[in-house]
């Protein structure tokens, strides 16, 4: 390959937290001056899981902004959105409950927006997604349940969309539109759902080429607001693929072990824990090609992967990077959670 000029490396700031980070998200902007992140932490000394709001200073220092909100169980998935001009945070737990918390813009306190939805899943919820607008959540679990939870008038309304009775396990979920969402699961499978159509997924997809060697699990999916027909997925063995609803039988495979001859780049050989479209790139500049995506992995890689190009590594850590998030205001800044009880904040030039 031709030697291309390396892009300027990002500025990285690592901050020890002295607690395990189960999840991290930027909060949607609500103040002109300050930026905030929400961290789902677990303190092993006191056995307490909690949600903490931290302010992020321009020099990328973290400071706890208010008293942490305690949770009954460790967080398995964390999302944030804006609802009625307030930042809301949805957290699903290992005990199968769902908590929707609101952050008060005045004193930055974080409190439940409604009583928690208990017992949504048997044996732990695996993923939750909060729709834009912040009132609807979809939560999925390995027990095969797909739940919709909506926030209104100080309480959570629960509705079960589907229950696979454990025959199928779901591990990832993402809204595509106010009525459609996608889920990911074992065997690199993706399902497409429409809340107007009851009784099961409207469309199913399984990446058969991926099964040539060994199968795996989808850990994270993403759908770009400008391209709602494409579902992007990342999972085991460094696998990244996209499923276009209009061309159902031909997945676009970006990376992965044993993916056949067409796939040249391999960004990681281990689990891809989170995948998101690179929000710092405008879709209009890319044309009809796949949008660039960012991933984080068990072997400590944070990288941008683009179709037909070598992946660009932004971070290569000695420990796993478990989650990351783009700052909605300034997508060149990324916050990520590291296995070794710390947070890293990257500013890309």
């Amino acid at each position: 390959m031709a030697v291309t000029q390396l892009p300027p490396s990002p500025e990285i700031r690592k901050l020890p937290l002295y607690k395990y980070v189960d999840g991290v998200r930027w909060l949607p902007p609500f103040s002109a001056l300050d930026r905030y992140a929400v961290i789902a932490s677990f303190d092993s000394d006191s056995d307490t899981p909690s949600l903490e709001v931290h302010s992020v200073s321009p020099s990328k220092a973290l400071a706890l902004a208010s008293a942490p909100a305690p949770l009954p169980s460790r967080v398995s998935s964390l999302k944030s959105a804006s609802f009625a001009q307030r930042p809301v945070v949805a957290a699903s737990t290992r005990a199968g409950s769902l908590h929707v918390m609101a952050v008060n813009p005045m004193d930055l306190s974080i409190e439940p927006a409604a009583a928690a939805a208990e017992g949504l899943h048997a044996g732990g919820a695996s993923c939750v997604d909060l729709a834009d607008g912040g009132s609807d959540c979809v939560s999925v679990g390995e027990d095969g349940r797909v739940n919709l939870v909506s926030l209104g008038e100080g309480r959570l309304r629960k509705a079960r969309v589907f229950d696979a009775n454990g025959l199928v396990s779901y591990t990832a979920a993402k809204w595509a539109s106010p009525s459609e969402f996608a889920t990911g699961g074992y065997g690199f499978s993706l399902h497409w759902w429409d809340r107007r159509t009851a009784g099961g997924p409207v469309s199913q997809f399984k990446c058969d080429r991926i099964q040539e060697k060994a199968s795996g699990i989808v850990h994270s999916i993403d759908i770009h607001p400008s391209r709602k027909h494409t579902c992007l997925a990342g999972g085991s063995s460094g696998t990244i693929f996209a499923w276009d609803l209009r061309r159902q039988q031909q997945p676009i495979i970006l990376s992965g072990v044993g993916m056949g001859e067409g796939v040249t780049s391999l960004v990681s050989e281990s689990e891809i824990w989170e995948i998101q479209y690179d929000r710092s790139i405008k879709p209009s500049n890319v044309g009809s090609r796949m949008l660039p995506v960012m991933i984080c992995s068990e072997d400590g890689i944070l990288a941008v992967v683009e179709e037909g190009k070598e992946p660009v590594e932004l971070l290569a850590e000695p420990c796993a990077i478990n989650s990351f998030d783009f700052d909605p205001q300034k997508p060149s800044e990324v916050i990520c959670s590291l296995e070794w009880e710390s947070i890293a904040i990257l500013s890309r030039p």
Partner: protein
Amino acid sequence: MPGATSDSAGGGALVPLSPETKRSPVYPLRHSVGPPVSPRVSVCWARGSSLRVSIFQQRSPPGGEGDAGGEVVEVKLNGGDGEISDAQWRRIAYGSMSPFAMLQSRRNSVSTLSRISPSPYHVDWWEFVMEYSKDINALLGGPESTPASVIEDPKTVLKKSEKPASLKAAWELMELFYVDKLSQAWLPERLVDWLADYDSLFSGSCATVHSKLVDFQNELINIQVIEDNPTYWEVIGSALAVGWLEIVVKLLHLHGSYQLDQLSSRETENGLVEAVAVLISKMPRMRLELGDGRLGECYKAKPDFIKAWEKWRSQITKLDCSAYWIQCHHLQTREGLKNLLQIMLGNTNSLSSATCHWLELYVSHFLYVRPFTVGLESMHGLAQKCIQLKPVPRSQKLMGLLLGILGENTEVVLAECSKEFGPWMVAHAIELMTAGSDEAESLLCEEQYDLGELSLQELHRLVYAQVLCSHAFTWQIAPVYLTSCMKQGMGLLEILLCKQPVQHNELLHKNLEICRLYELDDVSSHIMKIAGVHHWKHGRKGAGVFWLQQAQDEVRLHKIAQQLFASVGKSISDESFKQWEGLIELLGSESKTAGGLEFLHK
């Protein structure tokens, strides 16, 4: 619990057993099991260094109020003096893994290379260890410098800094003696610097020059005529004895004769103070370099140093015999300055009274009496002499370590490290010790019959790995240490991996990733089988089938197929067909790994 009062906690006090039962402390244990106050208690080990204490009520209280119950309390045993919190220890553990792994891989490549051409690679080994040591030292505490304020307060003698950690002090001490070959010729001066950084650590167990200075600093604002104060001269003498020249000169400049309104009337006195200050700031030092703002004159070669040293001492003697002293009418100043000259001339009595503990006396001897001391043997002899002159009432952990190093007694050093600083320190410091001498290397790396053919090095790595394994956050680091153990490492690693819980998807994958890294395919498929059966048992049939397929466990898949077939046979409605669809899809088209589940396709 009903009937629980805070008083009932007193009845449940636990007494830890120890050989000297006289001094065993009693810790109250809080529980809410109500009276009768003689509950049955069961104690066992929980994860890590915590105890699980189960307290059972013997029978329900009379009156039948509440149930006969009990409570399980976890008691965390906190070893050490709590200087470093558990979370801090974990941060050190995370950070030291990469330097350790790097050093091991370098050792492997060096030994491979040296087999081909033995000579040129062995020479630089200490430089690799030095790099490792620096990386680890950086973890143990940041540089103590606080941002310097723009306006310097003349009355701030000591820079305020956070209390340094004795772990860092111990690490630096070992680096100094065992690894840093460049400092070998300047060991005495390096010890002077080391004590300047860490003298405050001794304040807990005895008086120190540092604590004297801190006390004086606090008093300083209230003192009107500083040179009349006897403590002023005492503190200056002490600081000079341990070689903190910058502080001495700064203190001397606070002398009243420097004030503009007094300068004319106390001209001779001021001249004497200034002459002493100048002599102090020109003190010849035999060392590689002096940092910015440090006083003294630096000499690298011994002949140059001897020349300068003799000249400097003759200047002191000349000043000592000068006629100006008679014209100095301020008694305290005259006696104080004369004492400083005696210290500089190496008067043993002056040094002894100016210093507080033997290490300070030791350092003052290097500075003013025997600046040419070389070799551990003579350094050790001097140390013994100083201990006789200034015995310490209570032994201090760093002193024990230093004496072990000076006495060239590897076993003592190892024991001190283990006793005072714990398994992390031993596992990592052995790398420093083996870099230092062949004798230590043979003691630490040779397999020993009475340790079950293990070497001490491996034994201590295994111990540290066990500590890592016992915490849910650090077990993932343990494989690095276990794989560096030739004899028992891999066996223990397999046990560790097989014992990790499989309930949580992330944890399971992290576990399998370690199997992949170390190519432990058998362990990996064993774990997948456990996971498969776990999911199946908990009603997650799809996930169960998936993991058993991954593990290629034909036997269990066949059993599962029979169960499924039975349940499908009963009824298959349209509703449940949607559920089955997903499972069928998961199975895929190939029948190879389906293990009797093909029937579902029909």
